[in-house]
Structures are given as C-alpha cells and as structure tokens.
C-alpha cells in the first residue's frame, strides 16, 4: 500500500525559489509546509555556482552561490519548513495530490496548495541541431560546472564555447583559472546574451575573444572532439560559407539557453506560455490549475537569483492564503506584450494590490521607455538608459492603478 499524508503547502524543488516560497508560506501562517528536493542537498543550482555576485538585493551583500543557499536554507528551517531531500516528485494531479519517491519508499501527499519551483534544464546539442560527428567532449555549461565545482573533474584542455549566456561566461573564466585554454566564445546573435559585467570580468579580463554573429556549424572528431567549424551568420540567419574556419579543440561547451522544467506541470494540466515555456500565472503566481503556484526558473529563466527569491516569496504567501481559504480573487485583467517586448509576467492580474511585473525585451535598446497602457491610454512610462534581453526588467505598478481595466499592454517606446 502507498502511504498517504496531508500537508497545507507542498513545495516541489528546493532551490532558492522553493526555499523562499516555503519560508514565506510558513510566515504567512500555513501550518505544515513540506519542501521536496530530489537532490542530496538543498540549494538547487546555487550549490555549483561558487563564484560571487548573489544576494545583493535579498541579503544586501555579495555572496557566492553556496553562501546564498546556506542563508536561504537557514531562513526556511527557522520558519519551520519541513524538508525532505533525495525525494523526487514523480506525479502531480490537478487535485494537488502528489506521488513522491525516495529511498524510504513511495508516498502520496495531498496538499492544500502546491508551489512548483523545479528550476530549468539546459538546451543541448540535439535541441539546437549542431551537425557533425558524435565524439565525446560535448558538454553543456551547467554540466561542466557541476563536474568542476562539485566533483573536481576537468572536462578538457582546449575549449570552444558556443553561446554567450551567463553560465557560459562564468565557466570560461573558471576554466581559464584551472589552466584550460578557452579558444573563443561564439555567439550567433549580434549582441551577447549574458550580462555586460560578465563579458568584462569573464572574457575581457582573461583575453578570451568573443565572436558575435558566429556559430558552430560542424563538430569534428571520431572518438573525442578534434575541432569545430565556425562560420558567420548573415542578416537573414543563413550561414556565410566563405567565413567557415576550423578551430582545433578537444571540448565544445554549450551555453545556449535554459528551458523551464515543466514536465510535471504539464501532466497536472498547467497551461504553459509559448514564449517563456513556463506556466501562465496571475499576480498571485497562481497557474491555470487552482491552488498550484509557480516561481523561480520553472516560471521564467532568471538572471539574478534575488529576483527568483522575491517572486517566490509572493508565490509562497499566496499558496498559504489558498490553503487557508480554498480560493483567491479571480484575475480578470489580461497583460499583453506589445512592440519590443518578448514576454511579460504575470499574464493575468487582479488589479487590486501593487503588482511587480517582470519582462524581457526582444532586442537591445538605448534611451527607450517601457510604457504601460490600456486602450491607448498611457498608465505608466519608465525611461531606461539601456534595455537588454539579457537583463530582466522589473516594474512595479502601485495599488489601484489598474482597477476597472480589462487589458494592459506593455511596449518599448523610442
């Protein structure tokens, strides 16, 4: 027989988002809050991020990933959160019953509310379809980071990096510090997809060249990677054949994007956004399935952990409210991404309280404004010096500013 237990709030995933959500749910008055983590330790991806730059918003100091995680874990435990590690959530049904498994066996857990905070996974060679042979030596950046920082294993000696995402940049520096040679970073876009400070600190400071508008078109080598062919990409996205050149290397490291890990959500019937690939949520971070909330990288890929934690606190607080009352106010106002906006969250709002919107622009812009409007009437305009797809923008609209509307649109205005 499969044992059954009941909790007020269950949190799936013990990274910074899950930890913050669980702590907030307790603080907001939820009775039993249970956090489930499939890894051996809490802290999620932070455990392998041994560089610093975390926590300036939430803890007001610059911390390494493990330091940030340690503080977040302490907060959760102090708040009275029960945690279980080495425990995988296998299934979630729309009535918020979960099937979980660990070395202690299988259980069913019925929850008054559920917070999804499963994080994300990396895009792979197969997902982006790099041609060529199939040797060893092709790694995603997160895997390289895991091998190096958690297992003291070096994956190669001469590395080409595809993609200028933050993880890739940080790993370029880490590899250089370990004495590996980073031949170059190739980025298919006309601008880097990582934060500007990481370009300076991780590439420029180490003399690692960054080639924009450039991609890997073929992988060579039968046993181990022997090299890659790089080529420039024309303005219509086609390969400029004349620019093909081979770079010798024994490792290709991919930093080509993260995908929210929503398999569990999908099976529970949670509706996903085609752009973020995370759930569609309202301003309580409630998904399309009542009582199921989402936050952190499973909702949208964050570049700063602090914002993942802040968003999670809100989700945890809402989950506690749902567990107590069984329903939350309906979110009737639709939020639409307009010109220049790739996505904006939440996608639906109630309009009562103050709301934190998070969004990403489609392409870099200087001296532009983020404009909120409804039916052509401007609600709020924020002038920005720089807008870059790499940095998530956050905008707060104060209490009552959306009352009575049916739709708001956000756009970038010159």
């Amino acid at each position, binding site marked *: 027989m499969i044992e059954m237990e009941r909790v007020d709030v269950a949190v799936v995933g013990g990274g910074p988002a899950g930890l913050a959500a669980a702590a907030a749910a307790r603080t907001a008055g939820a009775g039993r809050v249970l956090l489930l983590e499939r*890894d051996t330790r809490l802290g999620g991806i932070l455990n392998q991020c041994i560089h610093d730059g975390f926590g300036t918003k939430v803890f007001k100091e610059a911390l390494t990933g493990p330091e940030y995680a340690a503080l977040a874990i302490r907060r959760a435990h102090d708040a009275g959160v029960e945690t279980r590690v080495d425990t995988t959530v296998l299934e979630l049904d729309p009535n918020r019953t979960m099937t979980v498994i*660990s*070395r202690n*066996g299988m259980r069913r857990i019925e929850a008054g509310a559920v917070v999804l905070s499963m994080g994300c996974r990396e895009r792979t*060679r197969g997902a982006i379809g790099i041609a*060529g042979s199939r040797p060893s030596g092709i790694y995603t950046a997160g895997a390289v980071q*895991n091998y190096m920082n958690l*297992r*003291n294993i070096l994956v190669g000696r001469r590395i080409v990096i595809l993609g200028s995402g933050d993880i890739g940049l940080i790993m370029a520096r880490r590899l250089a510090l370990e004495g590996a040679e980073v031949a170059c970073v190739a980025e298919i876009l006309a601008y880097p997809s990582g934060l500007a400070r990481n370009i300076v600190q991780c590439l420029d400071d180490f003399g690692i060249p960054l080639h924009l508008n450039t991609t890997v078109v073929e992988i060579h080598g*039968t046993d181990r990677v022997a090299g890659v062919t790089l080529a420039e990409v024309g303005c219509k996205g086609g390969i400029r054949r004349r620019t093909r050149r081979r770079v010798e290397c024994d490792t290709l490291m991919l930093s080509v994007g993260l995908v929210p890990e929503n398999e569990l959500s999908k099976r529970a019937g949670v509706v996903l956004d085609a752009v973020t690939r995370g759930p569609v949520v309202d301003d309580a971070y409630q998904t399309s399935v009542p009582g199921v909330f989402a936050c952190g990288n499973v909702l949208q890929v964050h570049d700063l952990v602090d914002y993942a934690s802040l968003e999670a606190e809100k989700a945890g607080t809402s989950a506690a409210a749902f567990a107590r009352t069984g329903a939350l106010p309906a979110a009737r106002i639709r939020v639409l991404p307009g010109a220049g906006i790739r996505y904006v969250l939440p996608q639906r709002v109630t309009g009562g309280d103050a709301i934190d919107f998070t969004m990403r622009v489609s392409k870099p812009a200087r001296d532009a404004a983020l404009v909120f409007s409804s039916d052509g009437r401007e609600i709020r305009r924020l002038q920005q010096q720089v807008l870059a797809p790499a940095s998530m923008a956050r905008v707060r609209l104060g209490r009552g500013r959306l009352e009575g509307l049916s739709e708001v649109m956000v756009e970038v205005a010159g």
Partner: protein
Amino acid sequence: MYKTFDVAIIGGGVVGCAIARELSRYRLDVVVLEREPDVARGTSSKNSGVVHTGINVPPGSLKARLNVAGAAAFEALCRELDVPFKRVGKLVIAMRAEEAPELQALLTRGSANGVPDLEIIDSETVRRLEPNVSGYAALHAPTAAITCPYSLTIALAENAASNGVAFQLESPVTSIVPPGEAFTLTTPSGLVNALLVINSAGLHADRVARMAGLSKYRVYPCRGEYVILDKSRCGLITRMVYPVPPKGGPGLGVHITPTVDGNILLGPSATYIRGRDDVRTTMAMRRQLLKEAAELLPGISPGDAIAAYSGVRPKTVPSSRGGFGDFIIEEPPETLGMLHLVGIESPGLTAAPAIAALAREWVLRYLPRPESPRFNGRREPSPRFRELVAESQAALAAVDPDYGQIVCRCELVTKAEVLESIRNPLGAKSLISIKYRSRAMMGRCQGGFCGPRVVDLLRETGVPVDRITLRGGGSWMFAGTTRGTANGAGRAPVTTGAGDD
C-alpha cells in the same frame, strides 16, 4: 597453443548476436569477435526499429523469405528475452490520387509474400485511426510492429553469453588464414582458431571476405539520418506513418515512427557516402527531415527535436545502378567453411531471427552436435521502473531502496537499474553501454543532469575518472582533476558534492 573454437562469428550486430544465441542451444564452442568495445555499436543501433511485415520486398527474394519468417518469430523472441515489442501497425499514406495505385502495388506484393490483414483505407478512415495525419488514402498494415533494436542486440548477446558463448570485444579481425585444420583469425588481442567462420561484419563484410581471399563483394554505404522528437509529442501518432516509397530510391522514404519508449523518429534520409562508418548528421538533412515529416504530420516543429543520429545501409548496388539488391548469404567454393552475410540492410533487423536459423542449419551440417541440456533461452525480466504503475514502483522501492532513488529524471531511471547496467555480463563499461542498457542519459536533457551521477556510480564500482569513456577507445570524457585536488588525474576521491551519498 590457442584453443580452437567450433565457430567464430565476426561482428556483434543484431545478426551476429542472433546467430550466437541460436548456436548456444547446441554443444558448440562459439566466439563472437567484435571490433568495438560493446555489441550493438554498428547499424543495429542506428535504424528505425521496425519489425517489417514484408510489403516492401519482391516476392521470391531471399529478403522476402527471411523478412516474413523473421517477423513471424519476432514477438516470441522478444518475450523470451524481455525486450520491448509493440504491434502498433503501419499506414502508408498516398497524399494524392496519383499515388493511390502505389498502395495497390504494395498490397499485391505484400499479399504475395503472405502478409495478413492488409487493407486500403480512405482518407476518412485515416483520420479516424490517426487524427493528426491527413492523406488521400492509405495502406493499413496492422501487423507491423516496433522494437528496440539495440536492446534486442544486447539481450541476444547477454543471453548467448550466459549460455556459454565467448565475446571478445575490442577485437577487430585483421586477417584470416584459411584452414589447414582450422581458420586462424588475427585480432589485436591475439589469434583465434575456429573450424567454421561466419562473416556478419555488416558494413565491413566485403573487407572481411577479402581477408579470406574472396574479393567478389562490394559494399556501397548509404547513410540515413534521423531526428528524435521529445516524448511530449508522443500523442501525435500511435502507428507508423510512411509515405509512398520514392520510385527507384534507395530507401523507404522519410517516415514517422513511434519508438517503444514513447519518442518519435523522423527519417531516414538516403545519401550515398564514402566512409562506411561516417555517421555524422548534417544541418541540411535535419531541415529537410523536419520539413518532409511536417507534410505527413502537420504539428511537428523543430523545437520538438531532442537529438539526431544516423545509420549506414550496406548496399550491394551502387547509386549509379540503383534498384533492388538482395541479401547475400552464401558459402562460396573459394572459402569453404566460411559463411558470408553481405548486404544485410533493411529488413535485416526483422530478418535476424530467420538469418540465425539459416546459419544454424549451415553449422549443423558441418558439426552435427546435440542440443545443450543447459541452454536457457529466457532472460530474467528486470524491472523497468518507468514502465510500471505506481503500485508496482512502490513495491519495488519497498524491497530495494535503490529503486527509490531516481538517477535520470527525464527517463525515470533508478539507481538500481543503472547499477545493473554497469554490471552487465559483457563487461562493457562506457557511458554509451550504460545508456543503451538503462536508458539513463537518453532523454530530453541528454545526460546534462544524470551524467555526473552516472559517473559517480561508475567510480564507485572502481572505474577511475581518467578511464571513463563515452564509447570506449579514445573517447575519453575527462582531462583530469582540478587544481588543488589530491594527486592528479584519476585518483581523485569522490568529492563531497551534491549527489554523493
């Protein structure tokens, strides 16, 4: 001196392994010599995994006879060996009225080969069977089935091994001295003597024949590329969906095949190439496969792809000539005592059980040995966690906590299953050997998550970090350890990181 085997089989593909297992029923001393560090590394792991019915092969050919006989034996064989087999059926779609006569031709040919229950259905029935597929009409072949080709090859080999067949891996045969008393085969690990030799070296069968002085065969490699789609798309089709085969082309056309594990395969293409082992994939073909497949099945998009691979057909007719080439299975007078299997392209997987029966008859004519009383053709089923209902999963985890520990999150593979795959009877320990046996690292994250965990388990079983390879040989995974780690490469203790118990 060297021991003399009764039979040496060159090549551990599905054909060589099926023969080995068939021969293990008898009191015969059999050895399989395989070039690679594991079985199932050639064409046998790089195909569509379809158990064909026999509608595509000309009546009267050896291909037709062995296809139909192999298909008839397949389900029972898979059951004995605990290998997945699903009779999902197949639709050959005519997109336009002009293509409809082709369906009739396939039906006629299939019926002549004795394929049961073939039927031509109209577009409405197509819609009813496969709501996401559109077409003018289709040939429905309900007995067509799918299997897992590398699982089958591995199961045949492991069952043969437990019935006494010797497997010498990483042993490419480089020369063959024809018999005085026995054949002498040279491999880098030593000489092997055998009374009879079976050449089932797949793409290299012509070269192996040449080693024995027989130069009449010629293999023309023809590559087929595939794209694998994410499991979340598995609801799109339940049957295989094929186009009408392109006229005079070297393949069956780009088809859409569900796999036994719930993914969808698009492909294969057909391109004649020079290097026989050149299994690269190309951008151009990926785009074309996705485009052609979307014509049969609108709703497929490039974002659904999780991986790509390709396999190479050992054709016996060059592209310039084209047309049908039959299997060649013979013992020419120049090499008496040596059976050659050349051009074992599709439907070679389907035909493997029948080819094995044929090889058995040939061996027994020379060496009429009795059956071995110890033969056990059953491979004990080992649980596949992901395929079980929750109650059975719970029961397993209650007995063995290793079944409660998920290692591969995408494919739901437990620690117990990974450990079992590491302890395989052939002693193959590369990551691909573990992957083919356990399915860890085969899902949408392609080992990004579980790779490090599998590496931990390998190290716990005693494989040092600098000896871990992707597929053996020079496919090393790691350059050593990081600075400040004790005593250099390979001797690093398993460090205290996430995932270490």
